[in-house]
């Protein structure tokens, strides 16, 4: 056979899962080619975005010396429950968050992902951008032995392919690791705007002492029209990341335009003052796989493993994803290293990748929250009902009416009963608890 392009391993995708895999394999001594369809790693990537450093430390213990392009540490975080004209806020701010490096930073992905990919390149991985993988190549036994790309003579061969293609899981399906496409009830559509604002102004508005403080707020209720979903407001170095996400099915069934929902949220009387005078720099959209533990693809086949969004590795409740992706990429890479040592690339051998993840927080958390999406889907009014209720109750509680407090308490109770019976509430809470306990 004429000199075909061969490596020890191929990684499809330049996001966190793919880069973690490429980095760990390159450090382990394998020849690695990482293929990214964008003009640079991260060109297609967007998230809220809070990034958790524990996963980065796991693959790059000296990451802090390498000056990652973080925006702001998250030193205050919490939840806002919106009704159409009010907000009830539960925020947590602590000196404990001020240690450096912090546990969480806001990040802009078109800045962060190229930096992360450069660390893998430094470790010896070959990063090829502007190249779309079009299909997997298989041998007669059905083992994945490489990929075809949209470059002329673009076949590349390796005994192991790690798919980190993201939520649009075309290759994962072609590999036969997942039977059918994700239904719109198990995928969230999120839209986001990045708004620029001078750091001093930003810090004054959000009560931040300087560039080493930042806020991450997750917002429920009226932000998503009371439908299952969340909105977010995060501070970046010189700007704000603001967005709203709901199950795709909600947009379909209610014929909602995502950008209208975002604009409505930005115009909420509690939100608007924070944004005043800011400039819109970028708009984007992304799907989030929320199929949960029970609908994940198989994680390994003959000659192939899948990691990150492509495998549905998201914990929506805690807005985690990139950290799961990095840990999974690393676990897949370690399995690839062991496979090379043994010369065994069968699905049976590669199944140790899944065993490693089952032992880590990645699949433990996914298992615990396996019913979360179903809970929200089966209780569509949950967020709206309770966010409104809490705000109405707070208004009664904080207002002096000249009526006895005992009457005020009774009013609050009857507010509750007007909207949801006690058995209804008990049932909602029981379902929520079940969804949280796994």
């Amino acid at each position, binding site marked *: 056979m004429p000199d075909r392009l061969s490596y020890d391993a191929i990684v499809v995708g330049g996001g966190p899962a793919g880069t973690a895999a490429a980095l760990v394999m390159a450090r382990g001594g394998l020849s690695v080619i990482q293929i990214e369809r964008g003009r640079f790693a991260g060109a*297609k990537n967007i998230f809220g975005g809070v990034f958790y450093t524990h996963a980065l430390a796991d693959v790059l213990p000296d990451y802090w010396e390498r000056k990652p392009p973080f925006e702001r540490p998250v030193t205050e975080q919490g939840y806002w429950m919106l009704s159409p004209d009010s907000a009830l806020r539960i925020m947590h701010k602590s000196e404990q968050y001020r240690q450096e490096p912090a546990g969480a930073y806001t990040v*802009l992905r078109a800045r962060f992902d190229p930096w992360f990919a450069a660390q893998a390149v430094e470790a010896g991985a070959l990063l090829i951008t502007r190249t779309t993988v079009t299909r997997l190549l298989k041998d007669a036994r059905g083992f994945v032995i490489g990929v075809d790309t949209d470059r002329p003579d673009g076949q590349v061969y390796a005994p192991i392919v790690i798919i980190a293609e993201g939520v*649009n899981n075309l290759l994962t399906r072609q590999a036969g690791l997942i039977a059918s*496409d994700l239904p*719109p009830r198990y995928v969230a559509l999120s839209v986001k705007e990045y708004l620029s604002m001078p750091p001093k102004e930003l810090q004054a508005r959000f009560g931040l002492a300087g560039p080493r403080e930042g806020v991450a707020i997750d917002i429920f209720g009226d932000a998503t029209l009371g439908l299952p979903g969340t909105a977010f407001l995060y501070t970046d170095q010189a700007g704000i990341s603001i967005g709203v996400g709901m199950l795709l099915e909600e947009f379909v069934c209610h*014929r909602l*335009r995502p950008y209208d929902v975002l604009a409505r949220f930005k115009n909420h009387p509690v939100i608007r003052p924070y944004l005043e005078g800011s400039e819109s720099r970028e708009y984007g959209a992304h799907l989030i796989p929320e199929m949960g533990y029970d609908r994940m693809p198989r994680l390994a086949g003959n000659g192939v493993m899948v990691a990150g969004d492509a495998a549905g590795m998201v914990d929506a409740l805690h807005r985690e994803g990139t950290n799961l992706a990095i840990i999974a990429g690393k676990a897949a890479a370690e399995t690839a290293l062991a496979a090379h040592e043994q010369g065994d690339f069968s699905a049976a051998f590669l199944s140790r990748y899944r065993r490693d993840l089952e032992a880590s927080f990645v699949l433990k958390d996914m298992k615990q929250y396996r019913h979360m999406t179903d809970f929200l889907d089966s209780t569509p009014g949950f967020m709206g009902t309770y966010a409104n209720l809490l705000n109405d109750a707070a208004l009664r509680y904080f207002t002096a009416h000249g009526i006895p407090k005992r009457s005020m308490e009774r009013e609050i109770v009857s507010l509750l009963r007007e909207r949801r019976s006690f058995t209804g509430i008990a049932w909602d809470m029981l379902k929520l608890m079940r969804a949280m306990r796994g």
Partner: protein
Amino acid sequence: MSERQHQPLDPAIEASLPHVNVDDLIVCLKYYVDETQAHIGIKDQHICAECDPKPCLAFCPAHVFEVDRHGHIMVSYQACIECGSCRIACPFHNVEWQLPRGGYGVAYKYG
């Protein structure tokens, strides 16, 4: 599509939704348009003609889909931000969906 029956939206909430021109949002985006090849398209226009709610006109975050005066669906693939919603949510799976060729399509500056 779903086992759940969707309650209609509260009319007050419906009325509170603004009508945003998405062009004002995507004007900030950097695209490298593949002039020779569209990465998304309609498989069968007849199916779209029969599709009554045409949800793609609403849910696509870049408003890529529009109806022309002959009732055909037009696909402005140039504005696509490659999220994949239409691939998944078209009720008839009638969207031909590929990734753009390498280097083409949207390129986020912030992300």
